[in-house]
Structure formats: C-alpha cells, structure tokens
C-alpha cells in the first residue's frame, strides 16, 4: 500500500484489540455517513431515470398512471412508438444518428487538420489564431439563429439541396462550430506527440500529407474519439437550430420531434414519449459510459493538470 493513500485520519489498517467492539460506531462516524449521503444522492440522480423507464413499460398510457413504479411490465409502448403516422419516430432516430455521425466526423476532421497546423507549424497569426478559437467558443452559434435561418433561406435559392428544410444544410451549419474548443483540446494532445516522429518520417521521404494521415492521426486516435463523441452528443441534443432548419416532420431529429410530441399533450402521450426517450438515451448513455474515462480526461484537460 502506498503511504500517501493511507494518511487520512483513522484509516490506517490497525490491529488495535478494541477495534471489533467499537467497530460499528467507528465505522458509522468514519465511513457510514458517507454511504448515507451516497444513498440520498443515488436516489436523486437515478430516480428520474428509473421513473421514465418505468413509465415506458406502463401500458396505461397517461402521466397519472405512471406514478406507481414498475407495477406492470409491458413493451406495448415500444411497438406503438413506431406506428404513429404523425410522429415518424424511426425516421427521427435515423436522422439524428446520421446527422450526429456526419457532423461528428466532419468536426473531428476539420479540427484535426487545424490542430495539426497549430501544433506543428510556426507561422504568422498562429498565436492570434489560437486566441481567436478560445474567444469564438464564447459565442455559441444559437445566438445567430435568425441570421442562420435567413442565410440558409438565401443559399436554398441557389442550392436547394442545402437550403432550409435540408439535413445537409443543418450539418454544414454545425460544421461552422468545428473549430473552437474541440480544436483546442486536440491541439493540446497533438503537442504531446513528439516532433521527432514527424522528423524521422520526413527524412524517410514522406510528404506532410502522408505524415498527417498515416502517422499522426493514428497516434492521436484517443483524442479524436473523445472529440467525436462530445460533438456527437452535442449535435444530437441540439434543438434551436435544428428546429428552425428542419421544417418537415419526416426530416426532423429526436430533439425537435420529441419536444413537439410531448409539449402539446404532455399527459396523454406520456408513456409513449417515455419509450421514445429511453430508446433515444440508450445509445448515447452506453457510449458515454463506455468511454467515460477518456471523456472525463478530455473535459478536464487543459485546466486540471
């Protein structure tokens, strides 16, 4: 056992004879109360999630019927979810995944290109460029939502394929935010890859593009995954821009579709909505938990050292 880990008071593995007699009281004062707080927090954190899961399995359909948790277990809501003519859930789901994946891939690619330049090359404007990237992230795109709407309407008159109402247009808008905090995260990680690797490859005759695509990108794969995932989560949860760009129910995302579904008649549609929410949350949560180590590392990189 490392000495540093056992310096907390009373935590030293001791062999005092009285230990067994006073065991419980000691434990309660030392560790037990922590478990008490832990249990309260577990209830607070997990309850809404359990509630929505229980509601999704409840056949009664309404909000009031969902108040007894896990009374019945019935998968009917999951079936009905895919049979609503006005709310094409399957289409929303696919749209969300496609938009999220394409936007995430684009963000990673554009960000990696820029991070490579900032990390490996020295040029005038480099410092200013890095500062600008930090400042730009202070202005989220949704502030310019009116301008985005009018801009896409204008673009649509020349290229209807990327105008208002198209998912391609929405993805392009999201890519406008590709450089920013993401690039900054990547820049930090690129710096940890030794420059001597590039130099060795250069001496062997590799071009800059070859070094970037076949050597560097592989070495920085963990940060690419983190940025990709963060951008995927951000994109799939985005509501404002998606709600004004995607006008047709068939082309909408889960955020827009489910909001309209439940905000109109909250109580009546509750259990079907819950089923939709559970299905929508599962992929994101699974990915998040699977990669949580990297994400947490990525989130705190740059400030917590």
């Amino acid at each position, binding site marked *: 056992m490392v000495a540093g880990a056992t310096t907390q008071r009373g935590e030293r593995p001791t062999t005092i004879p009285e230990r067994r007699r006073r065991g419980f009281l000691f434990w309660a004062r030392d560790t037990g109360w922590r478990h008490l707080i832990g249990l309260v927090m577990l209830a607070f954190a997990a309850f809404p999630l359990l509630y929505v899961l229980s509601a999704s399995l409840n056949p009664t359909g309404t909000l009031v019927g969902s108040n007894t948790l896990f009374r019945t277990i019935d998968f009917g809501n999951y079936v009905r979810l895919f049979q609503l003519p006005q709310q094409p859930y399957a289409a929303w789901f696919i749209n969300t995944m496609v938009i999220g994946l394409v936007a995430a891939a684009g963000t990673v690619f554009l960000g990696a290109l820029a991070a490579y330049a900032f990390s490996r090359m020295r040029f005038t404007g480099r410092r200013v460029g890095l500062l600008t990237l930090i400042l730009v992230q202070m*202005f989220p795109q949704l502030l310019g939502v009116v301008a985005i709407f*009018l801009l896409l309407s204008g673009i649509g008159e020349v290229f209807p394929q990327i105008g208002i109402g198209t998912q391609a247009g929405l993805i392009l808008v999201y890519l406008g935010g590709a450089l920013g905090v993401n690039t900054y995260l990547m820049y930090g990680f690129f710096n940890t890859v030794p420059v001597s690797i590039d130099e060795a490859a250069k001496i062997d005759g590799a071009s800059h593009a070859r070094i970037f695509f076949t050597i560097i990108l592989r070495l920085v794969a963990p940060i690419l995954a983190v940025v990709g995932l963060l951008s995927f989560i951000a994109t799939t949860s985005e509501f404002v821009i998606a709600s004004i760009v995607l006008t047709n129910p068939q082309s909408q995302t889960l955020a827009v579709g489910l909001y309209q579904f439940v905000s109109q008649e909250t109580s009546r549609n509750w259990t079907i909505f819950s089923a939709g929410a559970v299905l929508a949350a599962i992929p994101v949560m699974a990915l998040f938990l699977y990669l949580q180590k990297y994400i947490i590392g990525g989130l705190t990189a740059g400030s917590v050292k």
Partner: protein
Amino acid sequence: MKPPRSSSSVRGILIKIALLSIIDAIAVFGLFMLFLQESWVAFGAVLAVTVIINWIYLRPGWLPAKYLAPGLLFLAVFQIFVVVYSGYIAFTNYGDGRNGSKDDAITTILLTAQSRVPDSPAFRITVLEQFGEYSFLVTDPDGGVFLGGDERPLERVTDFGTDSTGRADSLPGFTTLTFNDLLGNQRAITNIAVPLTDDPNDGALRTPDGSNAYLYLSSLTYDEATDTFIDREGRVYRDGGDGAFVNDAGRELIPGWTINVGFDNFVKAFTTENIRGPLISVTIWTFAFAILSVATTFALGLFLAIVFNKPNMRGKKAYRLIMILPYAFPGFLSGLVWLGLFNQDFGFINQVLFGGAAIPWLTDPWLAKFSVLLVNLWLGFPYMFLICTGALQSIPEELTEAATVDGAQPWAVFRLIKFPLLLVSVAPLLISSFAFNFNNFNIIYMLTGGGPRDVTAGVDAGATDILITLVYKVAFGEGTGRDYGLASAFAILIFFIVATVSIISFRQTKVLEELN
C-alpha cells in the same frame, strides 16, 4: 533538400486535383445561378472564395493555410458571417410581413388582392411541369396558345401538340400532368397565378381545377408615377416611410418590405415601457440563473467529491457510476422528463411525494424559477463532482500531511490549503460553465418554455425566460408575429454581455498567458 517524389505523392496530387475540380464545378454552378438571379454581392463573395481556395491549394508551400482553410471556411460562413449578419438584421425591420424588397411587396400585394373578374372568359389550359416548376399551357378563346407560370407572364408558343378538342396539351421538353398528378398537387396548382402581361395591373390567370383558368384582377391598382396604391373605393395608400403602404386612416397593406431602421430596434427595446421592463427582468434572471446554476452545482459537486474522496471506501465506483448518469442522459430529454415529474395535476412529485397537493411547480413565477434551478442542479452536479474529484486528487498529499503535523484541523486544512488550490485549477471550468448556462436554452425551453408568461409584457417574455429563449421566441415564436429585427437586437445585446464577461474573466484567470 527536397526528398524525391514517390508514387504516393503522385496519388496525392491526383486526389487533390479531383477534389479541387469538384469544388470548382459546384462553385461555377453557383456562380451561374447567382448571375441569373443578379445577386452581385453573393456572386462576388463566391468568386473570391473560389479563387482563394484554388490559389491556396495550387500554390506550392504555405502549408498552414492548406490545413486551416477548410475549417476556417466553415467558421467564416456559419459563425463569423452569421454574427455580422445578425448585426445587420438588428438595424432593419425584418420580420413577418416585412421580408423582401419593395418590388416584391408590390407584386405580392397585387396578387393577393386579386379576385375573379365576373363573367370573364374561361381559358382552357393544360398544366405542364419542367424541372419541378409548373407552367400553364393556355389556349385562349381565339385559339392562340401561350405559356406562362408563377411570375412568368404569358408568352406565345408555336410547337405545341393539341388534343381532339383543339386544346393545346403538350410542349417539347415539358411533361404534361395527368389527372392524378393534378389531384396530388392541387394546392400548389391552385396557388399559381400567371400574369397576363408584364404589367401586374393587367391581372393574372388562376385555375380552380387544372383544366380551366379565369382572369383575376387586383382590387388594388398600383400607380408607378406617384408610388401609391388605389383601391376600388378610391382610398389611396402611400409609402409610409417605415416599410409599408398605409392609407390616411392608418390601415397598412400586407406585406411590407425590409428597410433600414437604424437604431429603432434598440431604441424600442430600451424605451418602450412594456418591452424595457421584461427585458430588464429577463437580463437579471439570466445572470441569476447562470450564477446560481454554477454555484449550486459546484457546491454540491465539491461536497460530494470531498465525501467520496476517501480511500478504501466500499462501493465508491458504483456510487460514482450512478451519479454521473444524469450527465450522460441526453440534455434535451432531461427537461422533458422533469416536465412530466413536475406536472401540477398528474405528476409524480405532486401526486406521490406531496400526497396529491396541487403545487404549481412550473406555473408560479418563483416556483418555476426554483424548479428550473433544481433540474439544472440535477443535470450539472455530476460534471462538477467529476472535475472536483480530479482536482482534489491532484493536490499533493504532502501538503495535507505537513499541515496536519503542524496541528491544523481537517476543516482548516481544507479551507486554507485545499480549497484555494482547487479553485485555481477549476476556475476556468467554472467560467466556461457560466458561459454555457448563460445561454442554456434547452433546459429552460424544454421545461417551462420561459413561462409562466408575463401578460403585461409587449413581447412574449415569462418569468423563467433567459435572453436566448427570448431571442428565439421573438424571432420564431407562435404567440406573436416574428420580429427578426428586434430578436437580432436582443442577440447583439447578449454578444456584448458575453464579450464583457469573458474579457473580464479571462483577465482574471490569465488563461491567455499560458499560451505559447
């Protein structure tokens, strides 16, 4: 020394040329379309960007530009241009019924004021389609055949085909719509108005059924010389100077057009009593919401980090895993799930936890504020817990040990040693968390929609509205008409607030100095 070119660099050049030609092809198409539409500013911009891109990639050397250009292009169009454009819109009256040029407005007014001329002759028509656009092939009562469409006046055509009754029914290059096509696109077709001539005062042809068209005349006539509209009763509508035609009684013709209104939107926001009041309270609440959100999540997260920062505690991993679930749950769904939990009549909180009480969680102004903060605490504490745990663990154990040896109590160790150290490392994250919550649209909009609404306000503002939800509701809300100009003025206001806050906080934390 230049290394010899290998076969892979030849492949690279080929890929580069292929990609560049695709971009150029798209650009040329766009330029062509813009040329036809006579949008010269956009034409110039697209041309300049295309030339720059080609120059960057064809010119040897200048490597950084090759790597930065793609991201910068998107950044320039969809972020920087968007900000500048927002600034421009804030100085216009853009909005519902004010979203085009004056010429467009005149044409639209004439078209919408049309009614069918009594006893007008029936024109036999066939509806044709080409490139997704409908046209009328018109056989007039004298046997002449013409082609026209929406905003395309009739023109005489010759190489048409006719059916047995002498009606022209086909034209090379066009598809004749079948009866089923007509039924399927009925709305689009009945909305088409084909101008008889270049002069909109001459009227237009419309069809109720796709086979006969009738002459429609506007009840208003436009006089170009005096720039006025005159209706059948002889009332005169003049250009009132604020983007619409108005008569002496103050009645406006819809639509108007976009004009530059200078600082009117800002003046309106700050001087109109029933806009200024809500705007001030929304701004105060935006700050309160952002600060309280950061404070509550940080306090709870830090507290939990301390509680669980105990080596050898059993089940620590399980606690941690479950406590970060709210953070992993998609943000937009959280608001909606809590919307159900907080429901006044049927929700779990009132029905089960409060035994059937009807507590107006989301409809009482103060309770709604509390609810929003509570839900945001639920969403945000895991993040703070994670970063505080990380920060606590990175504080060297020797410091605690040394202080303890000197006789410091645990609380003093925490307050005087650990907390200041922790604050140094998490301060930048607290600032970005503030910036995020300042514009935390989803949680507010999904949970309360900004409500409960302040009925005395001149804009659609409520007790929990923050600035960004106000912008959205003013611009795209259903309650009141869309007012893009005013919404953009509000957005500009947010820009200034965020910029000020971030400059001050960056100075404080000296994040910028760490850059090398």
